[in-house]
């Protein structure tokens, strides 16, 4: 218990502190790096609650893909972040209001599950205890059996997203030089090099 509590406070403290740094750091690259640190600590918190699959997915998807994408955007695009941040104080009341709403919702949810714990027992497909079956295995048990229909539709949604991205962005440009590997490989010295004998003192 002691060790777990220690890690809980460690992860939560670092997560909150680095989340604060995300919005207060002057350099946007630092912001993204702090965002990665926040994700990392959130993954640690997931691990503590026994949701190891979610923790690893958070690492792979959010840090491996999303945050790195952010980093590329921040470094490659010419966006003036100081200008973007100019009016941040004007929006502070709205932000505070949204924060308040979120806090109220959290209190309602936590309060609801504390006041009526029987709600948690009526879920249709509960997760088996961590001692019986690991999280990943439990997900695998249902994903390809009970949820195979959902899984396939999700696949189709991704297919549509891919077609959409290609349709809306791909342009076949004319007069563009492309690498043609078979032609390159098939070239021989005979076709590629022209040997010219130049008489000395005359030039071409």
């Amino acid at each position, binding site marked *: 218990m002691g060790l777990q509590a220690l890690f809980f406070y460690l992860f939560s403290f670092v997560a909150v502190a680095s989340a604060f740094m995300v919005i207060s750091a002057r350099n946007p690259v630092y912001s993204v790096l702090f965002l990665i640190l926040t994700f990392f600590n959130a993954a640690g918190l997931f691990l503590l609650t026994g949701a190891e699959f979610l923790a690893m997915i958070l690492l792979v998807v959010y840090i491996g893909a999303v945050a790195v994408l952010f980093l590329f955007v921040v470094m490659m695009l010419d966006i003036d972040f100081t200008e973007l941040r100019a009016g941040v104080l004007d929006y502070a009341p709205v932000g505070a209001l949204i924060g308040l709403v979120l806090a109220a919702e959290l209190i309602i949810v936590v309060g609801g599950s504390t006041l009526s714990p029987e709600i948690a027992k*009526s879920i249709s497909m509960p997760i088996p205890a961590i001692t019986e079956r690991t999280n990943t295995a439990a997900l695998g048990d249902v994903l390809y059996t*009970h949820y*195979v229909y*959902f899984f396939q539709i999700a696949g189709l949604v991704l297919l*549509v997203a891919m077609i959409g991205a290609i*349709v809306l962005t791909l342009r076949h440009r004319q007069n563009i030089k492309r690498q043609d590997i078979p032609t390159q490989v098939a070239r021989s010295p005979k076709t590629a090099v022209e040997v010219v004998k130049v008489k000395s003192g005359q030039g071409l």
Partner: protein
Amino acid sequence: MTAETFLASLHLSTPELILAVGAMVLLMIGVFTGEKSSGLVTGLAVGLLAVSGAWLIWQTGDGQAYGGVFLSDPFARFMKVLTLAGSMATLIMSAGEARSAGIDRFEFPVLVVLATLGMLLMISANDLISVYLALELQSLALYVVAAMHRDNLRSTEAGLKYFVLGALSSGMLLYGMSLVYGFTGHTGFEAIASALSAEGRSLGLVFGLVFILAGVAFKISAVPFHMWTPDVYEGAPTPVTAFFAAAPKIAAMAMLIRLVITPFEPIVADWRQIVVFISIASMLLGAFAAIGQRNIKRLMAYSSIGHMGYALVGLASGSMAGVRGVLIYMLVYMVMTLGTFACILAMKRKDGNHVENVDDLAGLSQTNPLMATVLTVMMFSLAGIPPLAGFFAKYFVFMAAVEAQLYALAIIGVLASVVGAYYYLRVIKLMWFDEAKGEFARPSGVLRLVYGLSGLFVAAYVLIGGPIGTAAEVAARTFF
């Protein structure tokens, strides 16, 4: 799930499998034959939709599949056939106009087939998760199709606007679903219903219901979630607008009917007041906001908002007669919309330029009497003048509302349709009593076929209404 139940599930969802596998095959054909294959792929896509529809009509045996998350019943089959017919008609109409509308790419029919697949899955969904996934499949394809003419600023604006607002509405829907799941512990429709009748409703569940209805109201473009409709209708290429106005509305309405009647049957009083409110608001906005419109696509957008309001009148009554009324209304609405959009697509000057203003129709009776007659029939029917189809559609929903003692709703509906008649009649007046400004080019054969057939259907509804009413009754009986 054993192998046997899985095979039975596959059998029940054969129409969807045909579309899913077919769309991928079409994609491969398109990719390997290049940009020129647009016509071929469109033809094959129409064939695919036809095969799927034929299977639905001759399919026997209904039931649940994939552990109860997918449902096949007479209601689903009725709405699916309607949706497939709508998609087919728009694909056929777009075939001739694709080049001038800037959507002559093979991805267009493929995306239409995938969107239609999403619609069929929406109609059959019997679980909150399958509702959400099917809705996303349909919406994502529609966002792309709206922005298909990517070199046109208005088309890309329409796509972006639709995407942002659609994502917002999906968020609301999902939030509502998570609340319903949290308070009942189930995502399956029957399980939610039994949990509700056993434990009664709680405040959190009503919150969830409101959010879900808000998300679905966005999809059927009902007030107050209609803001996207006029801009998207105006900006999207015209064949795409015709598609948006017909098939997705049918599917979303079918989903809404199943969603309120199956899982939320025990709390009918709660959802009825929401449906009554959005119905009244849609009817009034559709009637008054359309008066000032000069662009015929915007006019049709407000008209469709109003018509969704009238269809919801039937749903608000919550009875078998009401659901039957909604089914007939959606069928008639779809035919009227397709006929009108076939006429709009035919508004092409001799130099090949498409025009979209209502005033461009002036004097159509002198230049193209047949098209003017069909459009007149459509406008009279949209206004709800007897003995055309639109009158019977309104009659059935209002009668259901009166039977359910929703007198105020029925009276407001009739008054709104009187106001709405003004702008429909204005179009007719322009066509018959004003001087012609210019001639339209002769419409292509498919357009004449589509508006001719829909004109015949609307005019002769008195004669063919009987079997349609019986079919709608069989479909509506599913729930009661």
